[in-house]
């Protein structure tokens, strides 16, 4: 075999390897550019004042506190709805259901497909079901027809987001449940515990870390998605903070969208816009980072043995 044949093959192989490495570099570069751009233009306006004051002068002055408050309120309501539901579903699938049950198969299918449904479809559902059906029903039943819940409100946005993030919580909880060794459960039973006692006192405390991860990842997604809240409750400029379940609210992501497409003077609000984006980004990263750290620690504990 002529020596240059194998040289050429080797060269070609090395070149292709380099190409794949280049792909990685491109991706890293893109991420760096985006974050760099936002930090550069956004850090300028960032200050305690920006974070704690309401906007003034059509968003060219003042801060974005109502948007931060609204996002936080939305996320808290969403968590109250999604954690119990998601954890219960995961517990059912893992602890209660018979091993080869068709039902479990369907529930798992449902969860996986909920994860793929586009966010705007959730928005449509939120408008069509929560606002028009449930909301108007509540209005007719409790308020004699006047419009209270049959319109965009923070509770409907929170419930829509809870549906959106349900798969995240279920998957994270199931992962945590699977990590608990079987003999923990067997020991509990052998000591006379009922199934619920075993879950409440052994399984849940052990899986708390995984549930927390799921919750944090859900919150991170919930604070960033805009399409589901656009028509179910978010508003651009509100004089008051949302203190009632039927209030509308300002939200960071929605605010970025409206400010960058419909603001009065896009150039003048550009600094505030960039800073809002930076705040949103920092919030989601902080949450993501915390969730991933906790998950890594749990997995490490698993690998190293208990």
């Amino acid at each position, binding site marked *: 075999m002529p020596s240059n044949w194998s040289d050429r093959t080797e060269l070609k192989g090395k070149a292709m390897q380099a190409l794949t490495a280049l792909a990685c570099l491109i991706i890293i570069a893109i991420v760096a550019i985006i974050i760099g751009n936002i930090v550069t233009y956004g850090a300028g306006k960032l200050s305690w004042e920006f974070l704690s004051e309401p906007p003034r002068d059509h968003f060219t002055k003042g801060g974005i506190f109502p948007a931060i408050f609204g996002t936080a309120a939305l996320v808290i*309501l969403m968590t109250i709805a999604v954690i119990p539901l998601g954890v219960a579903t995961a517990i059912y699938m893992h602890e209660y259901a018979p091993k080869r049950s068709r039902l479990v198969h369907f529930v798992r299918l449902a969860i996986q497909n909920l994860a793929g449904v586009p966010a705007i479809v959730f928005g449509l559902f939120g408008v069509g079901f929560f606002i028009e059906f449930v909301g108007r029903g509540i209005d007719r039943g409790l308020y004699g027809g006047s419009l209270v819940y049959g319109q965009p409100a923070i509770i409907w946005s929170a419930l829509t987001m809870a549906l959106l993030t349900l798969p995240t919580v279920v998957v994270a909880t199931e992962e945590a449940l699977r990590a608990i060794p079987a003999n923990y459960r067997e020991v509990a039973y052998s000591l006379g515990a009922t199934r619920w006692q075993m879950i409440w006192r052994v399984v849940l405390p052990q899986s708390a870390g995984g549930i927390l991860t799921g919750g944090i990842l859900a919150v991170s997604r919930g604070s960033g998605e805009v399409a589901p809240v656009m028509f179910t409750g978010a508003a651009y400029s509100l004089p008051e903070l949302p203190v009632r379940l039927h*209030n509308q609210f300002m939200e960071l992501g929605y605010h970025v969208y409206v400010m960058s497409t419909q603001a009065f*003077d*896009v150039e003048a609000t550009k600094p505030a816009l960039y800073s809002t984006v930076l705040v949103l980004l920092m919030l989601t990263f902080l949450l993501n980072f915390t969730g991933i750290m906790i998950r890594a620690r749990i997995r490490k504990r698993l690998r190293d043995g208990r």
Partner: protein
Amino acid sequence: MRNRCVVLMLVSALAVALSGCGRGPDSGEQHRPVTVKGSDTMVILAQSWAENYMKEHPGLTIQVTGGGSGVGIAALINGGTDICNASRPMKPAEKNQVRSRHGKDVKEIPVALDGLAIYVSESNPIQSLTEPQIKSIYTGKITNWRELGGKDARLVAYGRENSSGTYQFFKEHVLNNEDFAREVQTLPGTGAIVNAVSKDPASIGYGGIAYASGIRVVPVRKDEKSEAVSPSLATVKTGQYPLSRNLFFYTIGEPSGDVKSFIDWVLDREGQKLCEAVGYYPIIQK
């Protein structure tokens, strides 16, 4: 210990949730917020009105949302707003829908005047445009600035979404109800149009006169023989500027209570003075 923590968390979360449980609109001392929804053209004006009115009347809140006249009208029909901002008159079909759903007729209240301006980039030298020319641009028949005596550059036309009153007004009065060309870029707000036109030297856009900054406003001629007119208080008030229009408030039936006081204030001297501050023109001069 851990259990107690969990219980404590749940209880406090429940407390937060319950405290938020609304009892609905409070009656008596506290006022229900007044909602104003609709036109993007009017949203800045409405916000100014709301801010100033709330300063004089603490305890009352006025909530202003944009989205387009279509959004406001839909909300009015659905019963979701007290006042609808519209930069175009409501169509008879829409008025009928309000009547059939709520049993009352709409009340149409003109609250300000606007000149629908034609924006071009600051570097664009075009002297004036006739209404037929503008129509040809937006129906796709003129596609190059060369045809208007300018450089050889492909024309990019920006417009609003179909929910916008400005879109409707433009369509009716400038396009004579013909459809916009498919290539017209649809942007969600006048601010976005101004921003896009300012960045794009071969572009053209339309929107309320109050938004015009960073771009050039082109004087408009009614036809070949007329004089070119720029939008200003004088030309819009007398109708000399061809694209003058009314900006409206709509309510279901006669306004009453807080809504009525607000509208009266808007039509009074103080409210009308704010029009000019924002960049529009007052409808009633006192």
